[in-house]
């Protein structure tokens, strides 16, 4: 019994990591329909910057705050220099390719600015495992789960209750119409990239004590996070949360009960199955095209 509980808690830990990364995709997608493949790099920059500042002697909390601000500036720069020049006329595919190029660029810069080693900083509340009914979970996992829940709540209220959130959704829906009703679409795009970068950085800060970080940590995280977001429905905060947790559980249960060799395969098979039946993911928006 305690084995099942341990698998559950392990799945919760990994799932929360995926959910946090998946949440980062939502804002930019909701603002422009673009899947930002540089999202993994935002997570990496958040984690690596914190590591290097902390190693230089800055207190952990201050290092994390500075890392988040730095990542937001990177996200803003990405938007201003690579996305804005397209002046809203580029297709979604073009913008996605731009973000892929940006992610490769950021990885290269990270190798030079940081280094190529694997890094970590201490967990926020120590490493003493918390025992629940014979199974253990690390305090840092609770931080990750808490962070994911908080960001989810923030995004949910942002998109459903705030005027700016509605403006973001309107910009993706029809940019010209949004401009006509007075929405500053340039500000909305810049804001969405900065916020996504911030979410990515927060994810990086929270998960690094568990996953460790290096200049290429973004690739694997982005892949799993993107898959989780697709599973739950791209653009839906609830979808990102549920998708991530579900993927984590599938991986943990497969590793525990079937074989660890197949755990990645199992997760992706489930994603394919869901997408065959519900192409928009579990909580994805139904898109209606007017003919």
């Amino acid at each position: 019994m305690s084995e099942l509980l341990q698998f559950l808690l392990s799945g919760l830990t990994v799932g929360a990591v995926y959910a946090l990364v998946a949440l980062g995709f939502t804002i930019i997608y909701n603002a422009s329909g673009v899947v930002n493949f540089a999202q993994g790099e935002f997570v990496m920059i958040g984690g690596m910057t914190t590591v290097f500042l902390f190693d230089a002697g800055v207190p952990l909390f201050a290092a994390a705050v500075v890392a988040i601000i730095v990542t937001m500036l990177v996200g803003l720069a990405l938007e201003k220099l690579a996305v804005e020049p397209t002046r809203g006329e580029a297709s979604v595919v073009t913008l996605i390719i731009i973000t892929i190029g940006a992610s490769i660029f950021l990885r290269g810069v990270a190798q030079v600015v940081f280094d190529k080693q694997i890094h970590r900083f201490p967990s926020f509340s120590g490493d003493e495992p918390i025992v629940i009914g014979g199974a253990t979970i690390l305090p840092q996992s609770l931080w990750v789960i808490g962070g994911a829940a908080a960001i989810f709540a923030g995004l949910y209220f942002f998109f459903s209750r705030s005027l700016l959130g509605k403006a973001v959704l309107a910009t993706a829906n029809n940019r010209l119409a949004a401009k006509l009703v007075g929405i500053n679409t340039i500000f909305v795009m810049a804001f969405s990239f900065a916020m996504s970068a911030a979410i990515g950085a927060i994810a990086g800060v929270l998960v690094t004590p568990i996953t460790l970080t290096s200049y290429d940590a973004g690739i694997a995280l982005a892949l799993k996070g993107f898959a989780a977001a697709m599973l739950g429905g791209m653009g839906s905060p609830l979808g990102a949360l549920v998708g991530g947790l579900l993927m984590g559980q599938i991986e943990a249960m497969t590793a525990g009960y079937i074989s660890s060799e197949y755990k990645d395969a199992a997760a992706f098979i489930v994603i394919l199955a869901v997408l065959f039946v519900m192409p928009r993911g579990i909580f994805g928006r139904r898109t209606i095209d007017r003919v």
Partner: protein
Amino acid sequence: MKPMHCMRAAALVAAAAAVAALVSPAAAQIKIGSTLAQTGGASFLGDPEAKTLKMLVDEQNAKGGVIGQQIELVMYDDGADPNKARTFATRLVEDDEVTAVIAGSTTGATMAMIPVFEEAQIPFISLAGAVVIIDPVKTWVFKTPHTDAMACAKIFEDMQARGIAKVGMISGTGGFGKSMRGQCLKLAPQYGVEIVADETYGPKDADMTPQLTKIAATAGLQAVLNPGFGQGPAIVTRNFRQLGIKVPLYESHGVASKSYIKLAGEAANGVRLPAAALLIADKLPDSDPQKPVVVGYRDAYEKATGDPVSTFGGHAYDAFHMLIGAIERAGSTDPAAIRDQIEQTKGFMGTAGEVNMSPTDHLGLNLSAFRMLEIKDGDWTIVK
């Protein structure tokens, strides 16, 4: 001819003459080729190796080179990608026309390059771990690091001495982890060890608690062995302590660097692993014949690069000095003669141990060169 044509023709002739004048006959130089994983996930292997080679080439050239000729090091970065490694190997042979090659930070890259050097008949000293590189023996291929098979043997030897008979394995699925897992499964019965659990994890996985929970639940478990390198073993070690598993944990020599201790934190205390003497250079007794070599290399490396010494850089050190020794004994730059002399290396004391090569043994190390270490208080200690 029209004036324009005249001028153009004259300009071309002048340019050709200038180029011809600039091209002086090449100074007598021995070209040594190399392609290592200087960037990428295996850069903790390739980066110290590359720095070591550059440092040693400069040192040797300052001493007058080898057999009166300066050494030119042609270095590429393959990032441990076997495809790139093979491309660079072809380039080294065809474009750069090197005399000998010290390359291959990882097993995957090495195996991809072997056919190129075998066909071109250029001696190739690999810096990678798996036993398949030199077993079966290939005419032109040698290697300097201990094999994964030797690591398994050393670990099982230690387990036997501690009365451990039932072992659970959790391996990385990368080339090295997979290869060492296979070797350990093969060798275990010879040491009276039964492998009672066999789990794996991917190189980028963040949590191995499900696999470890399964292993811990196996009846009669007495120890756990973790072949692999990179971030995987660090996370396995942390998870191990998190789950409160009491049996001993053995790691492979793939984690023989301070960064593993730093990443695994307090969880690393009590972990045992086989490693080369370079890690405990200062703790060796003065009577140990390896001590002067490892201390000398460590001091030179740390002075030249400012980085802490790494056992992987030591592999490059051994390869370079064995190659220089072979060139000196051969007295020529003929690749076949150099190859023959590498094969006859005897009594060479390197950072990995004493090397005695033969036509059937292109590694030349025995188990005594490996030391069993235990991590105590965040530092290496020798297990008696």
